[in-house]
């Protein structure tokens, strides 16, 4: 039976097969776009099969890279050690100064009503297991999903700074879009002056180590090295999460607003582990 069918197939010219499959693809594109919501279970189930494999490979991968790192020359480490010891001395001194500042800070915070620090939010730790490999978009997959209580739009932090936001979840994986992604817009705020701004990801600028901050009011008294945190008015990001430091503040081409460059506190090249805040921003409907 099968053999016969195959023979029949052989007489089919490749170009007709091409037409048929392209047509099928177009149909699928149309339907998957149209019924995007109903697609999630299928995507999730495929993700559930592939992700454990990626997870396993990843553990082996990080094991190997860790071993490679161990071979880093001893000299380098010793020199670094010296350097760090010096830094510790300097930091100890700085710390004393800062400790006294914290008293002021907590008092000011209460006044300022930023309320709780994001350290108090419930969090789930996850590790990065795969990336979008097409090169343009900065999104990656982590090994925790809805089984761990993760849902879409949860905020992701690492190194005490904002990494991005969960855009999709499966049972044991979720996809995170980083704030440096071209399509990412986060509403931010200057910690010192409370002026709001838009933090816009950019792959192009990220090569030079920064992303852009737009729509800063012309009246805002913003200077270099000011901290930007997520703002209260953001609809998805919880308030008060550190994003980074601005520099090169200037008036933009439209002359209606200021723009600046921002260095994120998170090192996006070396993200291995992230914390997902399992508290969603309350929506005002």
């Amino acid at each position, binding site marked *: 039976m099968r053999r016969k069918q195959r023979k029949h197939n052989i007489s089919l010219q490749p170009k007709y*097969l091409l037409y048929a499959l392209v047509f099928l693809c177009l149909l699928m594109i149309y339907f998957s776009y149209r019924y995007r919501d109903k*697609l999630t279970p299928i995507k999730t189930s495929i993700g559930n099969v592939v992700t454990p494999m990626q997870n396993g490979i990843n553990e082996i991968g990080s094991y190997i890279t860790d071993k490679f790192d161990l071979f880093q020359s001893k000299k380098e480490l010793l020199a670094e050690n010296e350097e760090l010891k010096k830094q510790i001395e300097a930091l100890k001194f700085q710390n004393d100064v800062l400790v006294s500042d914290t008293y002021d800070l907590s008092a000011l915070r209460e006044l300022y009503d930023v309320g709780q620090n994001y350290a108090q939010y419930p969090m789930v730790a996850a590790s990065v297991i795969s990336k979008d490999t097409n090169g343009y978009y900065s999104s990656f997959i982590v090994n925790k999903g809805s089984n761990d209580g993760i849902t879409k739009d949860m905020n992701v932090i690492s190194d005490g700074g904002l990494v991005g936001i969960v855009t999709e979840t499966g049972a044991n994986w979720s996809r995170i879009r980083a704030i440096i992604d071209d399509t990412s817009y986060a509403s931010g705020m200057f910690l010192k002056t409370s002026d709001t701004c838009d933090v816009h990801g950019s792959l192009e600028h990220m090569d030079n180590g920064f992303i852009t901050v737009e729509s800063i009011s012309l009246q805002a008294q913003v200077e270099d090295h000011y901290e930007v945190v997520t703002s209260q008015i953001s609809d998805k990001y919880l308030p008060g999460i550190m994003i980074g430091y601005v520099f090169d503040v200037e008036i933009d081409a439209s002359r209606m607003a200021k723009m600046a460059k921002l260095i994120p506190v998170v090192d996006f090249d070396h993200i291995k582990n992230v914390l997902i805040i399992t508290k969603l921003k309350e929506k005002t409907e």
Partner: protein
Amino acid sequence: MLIGIVILIEILISYLLQSAVFPFFELAGAVPDVLLILIVTIAIYKGQKAGMLTGFFAGILMDFCIGEVIGLFAAIYLFIGFLCGFAVKIFDREDVLIPLGITTLAELVYCLIYYVLLVLLQGNLNFGFSFVRVILPRVVYTALISIVFYRIFLAIHLHLPERVREEERI
């Protein structure tokens, strides 16, 4: 039938390699396209139809794992499989240069289609930057890796048991 299963397994392994293994060995921020190398190999060795089907299923897997809509990567890879399938006429199992050239061209075509469909239409008009930063490293890396992977994939198909290969030759 059996050959289909073999190719499906190869697709899965290739995808795992490019999504979970090669990110550890990035060159200039690029990850090589192992799936494309597989598609080119199958297309050169077995012809257009096998190339197209391999591309189609590889694309479907990509779509389900990283795509926004289903069918886009499938269509791109399908098209690549079709184009590369023309090279079946000049296939020579000892030759390495022609597959290398075809893989490079195919990756370039893939990147350009991807750029136009998923980047340009999203409003990123800086082609020069995209080309130097994303496309070029990816093409070069894929071409380099293809020298090894082409041999591996071809060896797998040349050494398959007669029973599995026979079926396709009818």
